């Protein structure tokens, strides 16, 4: 009866405790009943009808396999990486998987669910394979992983665009938010590492260039940069590399990547500074050169220190992708606003769509932050 004891100790300990418990209980009841009442009395057909639009915008139905392919590769790659780096606790993983799949239940068609389960199945296999390879201490494993991530970006564009893929202007919905975030993170992270190292470098030119880059991008809000990419860029630059004709989605990707790299660079710089001088001295005294020192001693420690901060940055970037509506991109949030404005039968039903939009953003963010927390716990053990 641990629960009873827990309740006695924590909720009913003193008179004040009892009072607080009662007040909070009423408050929770009030909010929850409002919410549940709304959820269960509302007609959710608008979500059912607009399922596809919310998820992928105007992406043509017969082309959806492209998104599924990219999505599968991504989750298999992520699972492999996690398997290589960490031993997940079963309880935690079930929690992550459930929380990721629950929103899909809203959108359930049998088809969708079957696809998700198949992807899940392959992801688990790839997790186990890479976990096993790590135990075997095969050196090549890390190279395979790194290489796969390197070719993932080009592959992604390849699958989505080439051989008669739909125009980038048709990309929309939650898919756009996810893909913008993934690209901003995959491109922004390495760039951020280089910028941080550049800023800490003793070569004055490299240092100056890094500082100017970082401070320029951090100096203005993302919205301003998006406007810049839309209005200013075409009038400002000569039509170099036909930059003016580049699609707005691609421009959003570039802006988001550069913007996030500046923030990631600052986070990593903090990590670099937290490494005691003695670490470098020990490495130097052992005869490691400055690149080896960086690769084997400084960076691994610095990155560990900043994992939570980096994940927070990732989450922020992910949520910031909803700002791309400024470029006229119909991302999830934009669609959530458009449905109650434009579809007569659902006129004014903003709360319903916005709740679903919020749920989707929330689910991804919460899983990211939980993952970062368990990584943090794991690292504290080996500290």
């Amino acid at each position, binding site marked *: 009866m641990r629960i009873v004891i827990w309740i006695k100790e924590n909720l009913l300990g003193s008179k004040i405790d009892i009072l607080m418990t009662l007040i909070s209980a009423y408050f929770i009841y009030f909010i929850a009943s409002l919410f549940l009442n709304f959820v269960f009395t509302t007609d959710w057909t608008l979500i059912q009808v607009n399922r596809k639009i919310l998820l992928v915008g105007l992406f043509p139905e017969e082309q959806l396999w492209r998104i599924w392919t990219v999505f599968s590769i991504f989750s298999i790659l992520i699972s492999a990486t996690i398997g290589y780096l960490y031993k997940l606790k079963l309880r935690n993983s079930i929690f992550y998987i459930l929380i990721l799949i629950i929103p899909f239940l809203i959108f359930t068609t049998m088809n969708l669910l079957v696809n998700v389960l198949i992807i899940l199945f392959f992801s688990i296999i790839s997790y186990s394979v890479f976990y096993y390879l790590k135990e075997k201490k095969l050196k090549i494993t890390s190279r395979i992983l790194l290489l796969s991530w390197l070719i993932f970006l080009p592959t992604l564009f390849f699958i989505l665009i080439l051989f008669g893929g739909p125009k980038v202007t048709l990309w929309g919905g939650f898919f756009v938010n996810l893909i913008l975030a993934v690209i901003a993170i995959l491109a922004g992270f390495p760039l951020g590492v280089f910028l941080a190292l550049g800023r800490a470098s003793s070569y004055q030119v490299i240092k100056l260039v890094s500082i100017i880059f970082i401070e320029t991008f951090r100096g203005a809000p993302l919205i301003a940069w998006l406007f810049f990419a839309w209005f200013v860029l075409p009038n400002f630059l000569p039509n170099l590399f036909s930059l003016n004709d580049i699609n707005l989605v691609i421009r959003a990707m570039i802006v988001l990547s550069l913007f996030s790299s500046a923030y990631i660079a600052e986070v990593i710089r903090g990590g670099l500074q937290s490494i*005691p001088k*003695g*670490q470098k*001295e*020990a*490495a*130097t*005294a*052992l*005869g*490691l*050169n400055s690149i*080896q020192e960086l690769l*084997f*001693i400084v960076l*691994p*420690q610095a990155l*560990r220190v900043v994992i939570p901060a980096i994940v927070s940055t990732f989450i922020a970037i992910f949520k910031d992708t909803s700002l791309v509506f400024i470029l006229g991109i119909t991302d999830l949030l934009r669609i959530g606003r458009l449905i109650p404005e434009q579809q007569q039968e659902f006129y004014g039903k903003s709360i319903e769509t916005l709740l679903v939009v919020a749920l989707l953003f929330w689910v991804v963010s919460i899983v990211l932050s939980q993952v970062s927390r368990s990584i943090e716990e794991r690292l504290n053990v*080996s*500290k």
Partner: protein
Amino acid sequence: MNKKVAIEAKEVTKLFGTFEALKGITADIYEGEVVVVLGPSGSGKSTFIRTINGLEEHNSGTIKVNGTELNNNVKNIEKIRSEVGMVFQQFNLFPHLSVLRNITLAPQKVKKLPKSEAEDLAMSLLERVGIPEQAKKFPSQLSGGQQQRVAIARALAMQPKIMLFDEPTSALDPEMIKEVLDVMTELARSGMTMICVTHEMGFAKEVADRFLFFDEGLIVESGTPEHFFENPQEDRTKLFLSQIL
């Protein structure tokens, strides 16, 4: 004794800004010699031994290690670092690597030793410092004394000809000092050339061939332990010895 010079320092000076930490140090250290460096805080002991492997760049004078001059030539610096091992007061183990990996990293990356050979070497060194059973642990899981012994093994893994110790026991709890000094004593007996900054007078008396007494960036007095304990010449040496003995 007819011995080869391992370290030759001539008129070495070091400036921190305008502050002169070393004001002209001249000393020859011979092969196989164990030299203990003494002196009050701030006298330049650490600075001196850190100039020997180039952790601090000296401003003038010359330092030669086994005949190689320490200058801006990267090849020379690399050669000297490969011949000089260093043990720090704060251990400076790499916290993200296991004990074994702490030791094998430099042999593998710098000397390009194959992994299995590096691991055999590491295990034999852990054996030598008395903690082979700790190989798989991380530094934070060891006591201070064990950590410092790993640090010694790590330095030895590069098979240096000279070892520098900068107050290796000052950060340790009293009950752990002996285990580290024992390792150092064994090392001294094995014929290693050593320069130790230490206040452990028992150890110094037992193993040192020579003392160097530093004050305000200069070597004020040098000589055998007997000379120091029985017949110190300089007032500053007498004062210092009376304080620590």
